[in-house]
Structure formats: structure tokens, C-alpha cells
């Protein structure tokens, strides 16, 4: 049994694949150091992440296929699925060993599986872009929490950066406990120390909310309720497009935002 142990980074995984190919061994398992439980009888290969090795694999894949395939592999990696490392190993091995481009050969199991995982990751990325809701704080930072199934916040950064170039913002992954902060110049990875955000609801505490924030949440909720056409009610489609797991961060789904008009 051949086990490869890496540092859970994408660079580390591609380094691992490089070394496995170099050593001409087929890994039985590729695991991150964090989740590795020692196995007495296995042959253990501890991999040190190496940028040159990473690049070598990256370039080979790029040459054999297209830029999209490289992106696809990276996105599949962000799924953090239990056997994603072996799938990526098998997929890359197939690319390197086949003389032609296998990218669209969906009758191959590895190709199909990886493509499907990447699609799910892509869909989750899209969901972040759709359902992120910023709350404006007293220091004019627009803050949003999200709880994505996969580790996709990094894939959304360029979108938010292009779009909201003139406002400071934070997008925080409550599941993985890290986020990104844009300060009008650059985007930085951050963790958040203070207790001003409720980890479950993602809500910023009242005392640091901008004075106008509650009003706009209410106006938005009021918009949401009014634009609905009750003669066309179709809750099944509604739930399919807007699954419940997203509701906790949406002001339009928060009944407390109901506006009482005189």
C-alpha cells in the first residue's frame, strides 16, 4: 500500500502527482497531513511542496489539453471531496498518457466524474455570486457571510472586485473560518477575531451597523414581497431555485424585516 501525504494545497497535490510519476508508483491513497492516520504496514511518502514540480505538471496538462482543463482541475480540487486527490491523480495521468486530448471524452469514467464535480463546484460559485448579501457597517465596509458547500469563495473574488471597485467589502466563509477583504486597493485573505458577527446568521451586530442599513434591508424585503404575483404562486419551483440552506443570509427571507406601514 502506497500512501502519499501532502499539505492540502493544490500546489502540494500536483507536486505529489509529479513525484508519483517520477517514482513510477501508483498511489493507493493521497491524503493531507491533517487527516492522515498512521498505517503501520503502508509505504509512506511525505511530499514537500515544490513550485517547480507543480509547474511542470501544470504545463504538461496545459500543453496536452486547454487552459479550461487546468481551471477545471483546480475547481474540482476545491470541492474538498473525500477522494478528490485520487481522482485528480487519475485524471492527470490519463491526460499525460494519452496522445490526444481527452477533455471531452465523456465515456471515460474519470473524465465524466471530474467534469461532474467541477460542474457542482461551478454551480456553488455561481450561488455565492447570486446570494451574497452585504451589510453596510459604520466604517463603510460592506460585510457578507456565506456558508458554501465547497471552498469556492476564492473563485468569486475577481467578480466582486471588478463589480464593487469603489466600496470596501468583506466576504467571509463561516464554515472554513476565513474570508477576503478588499480595501479599495487590493484583496487580502483575512480571519476575523472579534465577536461582532453572529456565526450562525452571519448578521453584523447592531452597534456596528450603518444607520441606514436596517432601512435598506426592510425596503428590500418589502420589494421582494410586493413583486411576487400571488396568482402565479409556485412554491416547488421557488424552493428548487432558492434552496432553504441559503435563506439564513437573505434579508428578504427574514421575517423580522417586515415593514409595518402606518
Amino acid at each position: 500500500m502506497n500512501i502519499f501525504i501532502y499539505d492540502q494545497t493544490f500546489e502540494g497535490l500536483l507536486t505529489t502527482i509529479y513525484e508519483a510519476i517520477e517514482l513510477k508508483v501508483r498511489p493507493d491513497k493521497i491524503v493531507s497531513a491533517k487527516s492522515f492516520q498512521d498505517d503501520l504496514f503502508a509505504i509512506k511518502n511525505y511530499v514537500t511542496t515544490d513550485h517547480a514540480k507543480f509547474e511542470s505538471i501544470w504545463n504538461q496538462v496545459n500543453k496536452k489539453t486547454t487552459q479550461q482543463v487546468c481551471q477545471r482541475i483546480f475547481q474540482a480540487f476545491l470541492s474538498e471531496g473525500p477522494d478528490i486527490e485520487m481522482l485528480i491523480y487519475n485524471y492527470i495521468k490519463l491526460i499525460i498518457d494519452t496522445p490526444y486530448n481527452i477533455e471531452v471524452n465523456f465515456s471515460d469514467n474519470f473524465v465524466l466524474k471530474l467534469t461532474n464535480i467541477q460542474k457542482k463546484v461551478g454551480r456553488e460559485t455561481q450561488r455565492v455570486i447570486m446570494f451574497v448579501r452585504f451589510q453596510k457597517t459604520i466604517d463603510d465596509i460592506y460585510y457578507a457571510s456565506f456558508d458554501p458547500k465547497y471552498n469556492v469563495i476564492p473563485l468569486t473574488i475577481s467578480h466582486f472586485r471588478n463589480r464593487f471597485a469603489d466600496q470596501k467589502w468583506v466576504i467571509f466563509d463561516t464554515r472554513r473560518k476565513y474570508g477576503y477583504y478588499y480595501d479599495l486597493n487590493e484583496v487580502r485573505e483575512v480571519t476575523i477575531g472579534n465577536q461582532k458577527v453572529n456565526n450562525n446568521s452571519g448578521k453584523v451586530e447592531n452597534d456596528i451597523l450603518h444607520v441606514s442599513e436596517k432601512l435598506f434591508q426592510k425596503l428590500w424585503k418589502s420589494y421582494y414581497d410586493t413583486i411576487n404575483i400571488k396568482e402565479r404562486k409556485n412554491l416547488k419551483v421557488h424552493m428548487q431555485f432558492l434552496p432553504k440552506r441559503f435563506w439564513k443570509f437573505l434579508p428578504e427571507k427574514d421575517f423580522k424585516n417586515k415593514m409595518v406601514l402606518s
Partner: protein
Amino acid sequence: MKEETANKLKILVGAAKYDVSCASSGSNRPNKGKGLGNTAPWGICHSFTEDGRCISLIKLMLTNYCIYDCAYCANRNSNDIPRSTFTVKEVADLTIEFYRRNYIEGLFLSSGVIKNPDYTMERMVRVAKELRNRNYNGYIHLKSIPGASEELQQLAGMYADRLSVNIEIATEPNLKMLAPEKNFKSILNPMKFIRNKIIENKEERRKFKHAPRFSPAGQSTQLIIGATPDNDKHILTLAGGLYNSKNLKRVYYSGFIPVNDYDKRLPALQEPPLKRENRLYQADWLFRFYGFSINEIVNDDHPDLDLEIDPKLSYALRNPWLFPIDINKASYETILRVPGIGVLSAKKILLARRYKSLDINNLKKIGVVLKRAKYFITCKELKEPTINELKPEGVRGILLHHEKPKLSNYVTQHKQLSLFSTN
């Protein structure tokens, strides 16, 4: 921005909600000079209403006062309803504040007609201009007022990503009956003007990369379904003609919701014709993306779409001699005509068959849904009877019998269920 705005919002959103268009696609306006916003060419939904529709834009009427009296409209002059008017600043503020919180892709602004078309249109243009002056680069859709001057249409197109002029009623006599102040000319002329401007602008931007855009996401229109006896052939022929001659990006079909049931010119409907609306959208897709002509979908022998089955299946059952087709040999265009096979599946088939001759399992594996398709194709190892053996009636019977309740059926079904529970 206070309670007063909240009240106005309720009135003027409620007044705008029957315009079904909410698309934010088709434009790729960049965020210039580190301002606010850009547009995504594929469009983004930010929420979904309980009726299952996408919310992409904040849809407002600038005012719901109107000098006209269109029979199908909740805001018609003779209705005694709360009326209100937004200021230019209020609309711009709301749009920007919602946009900054990632609630929306942009603004969809329409208006009742106050004083005259030019006066109204001028105020709408001012909203769009105000937004662009504040360096807002998000989406703007303006609903043009029929009868407004070309100068104003021109200005509108300079600021907006999309313009629309709604026809609402598919035949002119019926339009005139329900909306005496309107006629086809007052609607088609601005459409023609916008089309010409868009073409001109594309040419200009080829020559000068920085020439200002004119309505880069094109124009659209809306047709109300079921308010008049017009059949699907009338509706789709008009739509097809508009796509071809006016280069429309989209025609929206909106099932009529009786808002003025006192008006006897209108039919008394139990519920909006959602099924028919859905079939019209499917037919529209066949025309735009599947290479069907309108005449193949509806014609004098079949002036109305079949509500029980989708229009592609209906076409195949009416033309059984064209099937089955060989999945491993047929052209892309032919594969697209197979019921149940969409653009994506057809493309996948073409790619996959480069590597090997496909059998039924290969098809399943690449994600082709065979439930309907299997009666219309042959491939390696497919032993099931096709439309040849089963005959059209046979296939129709099997498919109708097995068809699970579709999402679009849900509304009617829901009603039936509640019938039982009250007994």
C-alpha cells in the same frame, strides 16, 4: 429616504410587477474608472419570488398615474387606486443602495404616461442619466413610451443597456379594442428606430472602439396571452416576424392575470394560462435555438400548441416519417429535432461519437435523457421499439401516461388537491 419612500415603493413596485421581463443579460458594460458595477453578459439572478421567478432587477414604475385607459392594465386611468410618483433621485438612490448590497443587477424602469409621451420619457431618461453620472455601470432597462420622440429614444439608448416597447396584444384590431390610444404603428416605429440605431452603433464601434454604446443588450417586447382570442399562430408568427425584422433579443409571453374583472371586453379566467405561456416559451426556443421555422411549429392545420405535450414532441408525432434517426450518423441539426434532446446533449453526442460509436449506455453516461428520445433514435444496442413500430398515437399514449407531474403543471394540480381536502 424614509417611510414615504417605503410607501411609494409598495405602490410603484406593485404597479410594475406584471411586466415579466427581468433579464439582465446580453450586455458587457465594464466598470470603468473604478466606479460602481458592471454587467455580466450571461445575467445573474439574485433571488426568486414565491411564484418561482428570477429577481435580477429592481422593477419600478416611475409613476402609476396614467392618462391612458388600457383594459388589461391595473394602472389604467379609470381605476380608483393609490397613485404615486418617484423623484429621479429616489429611484437612483434605491438602485444604487440595492446594487451595493448585491441585491440586484440593476434597474428596470417603466412608467405610466403623464401629460404626454415625451414628458414621461424625458423623466425616465433623466433617471438613467443620473445613474450614469454617478459612475454607476450596472444594468439599466428602460421601457420606452410609445409615441415618444426619436431624440428621446436616442438618448435613452445611450444610457440604457436594453430598451423595450411592449406590444401586449398580438393582433391590431384586438389591440385597438382594448387599448384605444395605441396602434401597431406607434409601437413598431420606435422598435424600427431602435433596431437601426443598434445596427449603426455596432458599425461605429467596429471602427472606433470607444464610440459610446447604444442599447448593447438589444431590445425586447412583451405579449399578453389569453386576454384576447388570438391563437398561438397569431402570437408566434408575430414573434417570429419581430425576431427577424426588428432583431429583438427576447419576446416575453405573459399569461393574462385578470386585474379589471369589471371590464366585459376581457375574458373571465379562472386562473392565468400558465401552461400555455410555458408552451409558447418552448416554441420560442425551438425557433431561436433549434432551427425550427414558425410554420413547422404552428400552421393552419395546427394553429394552437398542444398543451399536453411539448411542441418538439408534438412536431415529431406529426412528422413520424422523419424518425428514427441514427445517433451515430445524423447531423447536429437533425439530432436537435429529437424530442428530449437539448442543445447541450446534442453537442455532447457530437463530441463523444468522435471517440467511438455510441451505444445506449454511452448515451446515458454522458447525460442524455432517453425517456422521450428513445422512440425517435437508433444507435448500437438499442432494442426498444421506435415510433415506427409504436405509431405516433402509441408513443403519445406511453409518454402521457408516464409523464410525472411537471413543475409547470403544479399550479393546476395544487388547485385540484385542495378541492379534495375541503370535502
